[in-house]
């Protein structure tokens, strides 16, 4: 009886008879892969800054928020552990590239010169900074 039940379970429920040894590749390179979104965020934000410079004011709040976070980080009013998490890679990238500039910048009075400076940092950067 039990054998029948087990066989039934096996027949009904197993999708594959799997030999794990047969499917494991020699290296674990594919395992624990995680998609990164930093490039995507930086690319989109660069596009926002360009749009703002081209005159589309609707991008001003989102750009200014990032500049404000970089300012707070440069002054030490915020730390790596409490700056905005969504814009983190951009904020850190900007602040690390020119901390003195971001110490003095006022996002409320940001003009095209400030946005151009931000754009230069974003477009000069060839890869994401790891420090």
């Amino acid at each position: 009886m039990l054998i029948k039940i087990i066989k039934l379970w096996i027949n009904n429920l197993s999708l594959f008879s799997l030999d794990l040894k047969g499917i494991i590749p020699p290296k674990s390179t594919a395992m624990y892969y995680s998609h990164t979104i930093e490039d995507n965020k930086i690319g989109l934000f660069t596009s926002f800054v360009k749009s703002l410079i081209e005159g589309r004011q609707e991008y001003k709040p989102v750009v200014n928020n990032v500049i404000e976070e970089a300012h707070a980080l440069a002054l030490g009013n915020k730390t790596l552990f409490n700056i905005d998490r969504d814009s983190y890679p951009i904020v850190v990238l900007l602040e690390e590239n020119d901390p003195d500039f971001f110490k003095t910048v006022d996002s409320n009075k940001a003009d095209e010169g400030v946005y151009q400076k931000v754009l230069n940092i974003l477009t000069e950067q060839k890869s994401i900074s790891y420090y």
Partner: protein
Amino acid sequence: MDVKLLELNFAQLSRAWNKSKFNNYSDNRKQAYRDRLASLFNKLQAEDFSNLSPTQVKDRSYIIDFFFTSLQFLDSSTLNLIPFEIVECLGESLKEWIDPHQDFIIVTSLVNEPLGFSFNPNLAFNNFLYTNIKTVYNEEFPQRLIQITLPRFLVRDYLANVVLYHELGHFIDVKYNIASAIHNYLCNHYFNNALNPQDKADVQKYFPYIENYRTYFLQKQLPPTIFYHLREYFSDIFASQYIGECSNYYLDYITKKQAQHGEEHPSTINRVDIVNKFLKSDTSSYTLNLILSATQQITNRDLSIRYSRITNNEFYNLLPCVISNEQQLHSLFILGWETWLDDWNKISAINNMQFQIDANQVYNIINNLIEKSINSFIVTKSWEKANAIAEESN
């Protein structure tokens, strides 16, 4: 970017959308998401791309990327394809790490790669995407898709699927940028000689190459290896909150107990070691303590043991386990692994079997029983919820 290439991209999207727009989904939220995509598609279709500036072309290309990624996962999450049981377990863990007002839909994509486990956070945690869509087309997506990819033929393998808890760790790391922040903090302190000799030695244990990177640090050209390794350590610890050392069993095997680190992964020995320290509440490691304290500061949540053991292992009696709460739900995986690693003759003996049970049978039994246990928990919970609603309305 050339307008013609954007038009090509949109033509590709149109073809994909024609196939996907009639999909049926198991829940109304996916249906609602699909309807929003339909509205976005109409706006893309109505626009004359030829008058757009290069920046505007780029904005649209990001939107088409978003659309394609949404379709990729929605197509695999139709009524008969979604692996409900594992999604339920991951959903319970996820709830503990996101704010209650955030509305996420877990969708899955099945791939042919044998180890193709991953979470894609791009649609969930990239607010710039939604700012772009709202600004360009005035469309809002209140629900965010969380995309899980898993190997097609391991979809109901609950032993292998413990890996998904590690992937969830990467997902949470990306949401909060935990490893990035720890990386900057750690490198600053290490290379500026701000650590005492004991802490420095601990850092050198988990990042044995770090001293060679001193010059790169001074030149501000630090390679990403330390950052990548921190991501793995964090995700390993994150997973072990829910599944104990089960992820280590699998990792140990597939990496052949790798003693050397690679560019993206620490040595298996170090990964297993840091997890074991965490599970034993060993507070002697500076690196582990830094990961724990930074996670608390950034997320307001503690990395801690978040499973509770099921007292009766019914698997030996060939019965599903009765799960009382979410913490026990996660420990089903631990039970499954313990049963797999145990002497299978016990199953034969307890059930008076007149034959030796083999690996394929045990494999199927364990997976079947874990799935049934999760199912039973889902049904009971739904029943209790329905009863509570009925009582309230009476």
